[in-house]
């Protein structure tokens, strides 16, 4: 009976003793102002089948523009409007318009890419991932090619083609005008 009482007291005493060591310092605590960004293009992600050589399993490596990299801010062209995402953003799913994404890195420098459309998701704990069909840094685009295509698409959009041709030309115009604005 006596020993039972002691055991009970020990049980009661335990939670207080264990509370302190639980306060660990995690990555999120060390860098509270960063958002972990993954920016991937489906055609770029190499996915060979996992190789097992008898000792270790080699998993397919992820090729991406950003691989879970800590950045300060990500500005995305969402269908619901342009938005900037900082750390600790609420979880969100956004459909992306063809437009420019800007990634602000440590020290205020930023990288700009033009994406052809896709989706961005923000997960709890400052984790963000962006998937786009095509995406290139702005310096990879030719302003001349954009201008030539705008003239071409305008001709089709105002011409007497089928309803579908006109719709496609209007989509092209929308993308090209967004691209031209980004290149300026």
């Amino acid at each position, binding site marked *: 009976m006596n020993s039972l009482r002691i055991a009970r007291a020990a049980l009661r005493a335990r939670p207080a003793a264990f509370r302190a060591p639980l306060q660990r310092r995690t990555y999120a605590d060390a860098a509270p102002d960063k958002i972990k960004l993954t920016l991937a293009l489906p055609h770029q992600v190499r996915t060979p089948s996992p190789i097992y050589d008898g000792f270790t399993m080699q998993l397919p490596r992820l090729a991406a523009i950003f691989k879970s990299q800590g950045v300060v801010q990500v500005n995305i062209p969402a269908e619901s409007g342009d938005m900037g995402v900082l750390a600790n953003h609420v979880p969100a799913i956004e459909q992306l318009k063809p437009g420019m994404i800007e990634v602000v890195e440590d020290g205020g420098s930023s990288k700009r890419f033009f994406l*052809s459309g896709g989706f961005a998701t923000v997960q709890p704990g400052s984790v963000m991932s962006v998937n786009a*069909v*095509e995406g290139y840094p702005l310096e990879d*685009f030719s302003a001349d*090619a954009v201008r030539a*295509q705008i003239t071409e698409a305008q001709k089709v959009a105002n011409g007497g083609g089928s309803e579908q041709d006109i719709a*496609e030309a209007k989509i092209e115009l929308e*993308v090209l005008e967004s691209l031209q604005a980004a290149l300026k």
Partner: protein
Amino acid sequence: MVFAWKSAGLSYNRYLAIASRVVRRSLKEDKRIAAERRGETDLRFAKWSNGKQGESKNLVDANSSGMASNAGSASS
């Protein structure tokens, strides 16, 4: 929210394909040539009925004619 491409009878996939194609065409010469290869699709299909193969059709052509016939009915 009503999207222009949707009321024109296009699918979201088709919309993305058009937007991506135009992005690839806007690249500088060297990158463009490498990228444009990705836009090419070559796939044929045939419908089988009563144990016989039907006409073999190009998927891209069949898709675009399907969407063209869709265009009128979807724009409401």
